């Protein structure tokens, strides 16, 4: 357990970050990160996910490689990131300059009853990212750090990884489109791909 409880409120923090996204494509991890992005204001540039735990970063990698002129940011949680930890090494190996990863880290499995997650203990995802070749990482603990984190996620040469230590909060449901074919079609259409 952390010495002090996390303070950042996820919904206003994610909304503040996304105000700086400047056309970046957002690959939302399943569950809460998807709800957070949708709650901040729906956009066809957001690829929502309802499953496939561990695949937010690989999906963002494929997209970043196929769209080298667009910034791609994966927004995921600590549980999903740890399930796909190996994918950080694949990103480090491919080293796309247009890819960033944001981990919303509440140190819990929030969707399933707030059971303890490994980042509440000794696990340091940022250290892993540096160890597999990410160019820069940043861990933020204060609500007021959205601006500097946004600069990393949306501007700095990638691959970069940010961690926001978020609080356990009770947020209203904000559920986007659930039909994957509709989500994918809308996303591709916004990119101008048939």
């Amino acid at each position: 357990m952390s010495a002090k409880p996390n303070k950042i409120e996820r919904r206003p923090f994610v909304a503040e970050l996304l105000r700086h996204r400047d056309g970046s494509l957002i690959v939302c991890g399943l569950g809460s990160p998807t709800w957070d992005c949708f709650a901040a204001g729906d956009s066809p540039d957001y690829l929502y996910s309802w499953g496939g735990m561990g695949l937010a970063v690989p999906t963002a990698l494929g997209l970043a490689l196929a769209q080298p002129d667009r910034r791609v940011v994966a927004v995921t949680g600590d549980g999903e990131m740890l399930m796909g930890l190996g994918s950080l090494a694949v990103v480090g190996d491919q080293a796309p300059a247009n890819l960033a990863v944001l981990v919303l880290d509440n140190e819990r499995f929030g969707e399933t009853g707030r059971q303890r997650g490994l980042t509440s203990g000794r696990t340091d995802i940022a250290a892993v990212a540096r160890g597999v070749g990410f160019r820069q990482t940043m861990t933020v603990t204060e609500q007021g750090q959205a601006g500097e984190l946004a600069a990393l996620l949306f501007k700095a040469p990638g691959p970069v990884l940010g961690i926001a230590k978020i609080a356990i909060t009770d947020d209203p449901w904000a559920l986007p489109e659930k039909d994957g074919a509709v989500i994918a079609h809308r996303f591709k259409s916004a990119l101008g791909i048939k």
Partner: protein
Amino acid sequence: MPKPAAHWSDDVFRAMQARDIRTVCTIPDGGLVLLLQQIEADPAFRLITLTSEQEGIGVATGCWLGGQRAMIAMQSSGVGNCINALGLPVAYRAPCLMLVTMRGQWGEFNPWQVPMGQAVKPALEAVGVKCFPVDKASEVGETFEAAADLAFNGWMSAAVLVSQRVIGAKGFGQK
């Protein structure tokens, strides 16, 4: 100089070129050596080495969403690592093309390969992947073409299962 014997991987490579499948995600297998060598040697292709096959499912889906075609090449044991991940392309109705070289079937000497090898086709079909088994080297190319066209023109997940009979069973001196 004698012409080297034709190999099924040449047919697959040509089919990939013709269909603009330029990204290959892989955990390698002995049966894929020649194909992976061709891909690595050609600058028009991108080879992505994974840590687990399931990552390839996400990468291929992301590539397609971004307007490019990718596939995943793996050994049959890797299919087990992909099962939940395949829910992603199936739900997005995104094409996901897998080339699987089989172990645990024809003349397998290693019992550890058999459980997953025998489960590949039923497991893939259970999560909605169309399977194309092939047990003749001369038919791998056309089978790959059929699976690729179903995947990319029909927005489906498809797997070509190249039999151990084509690859040749390993023995490690135990035959």
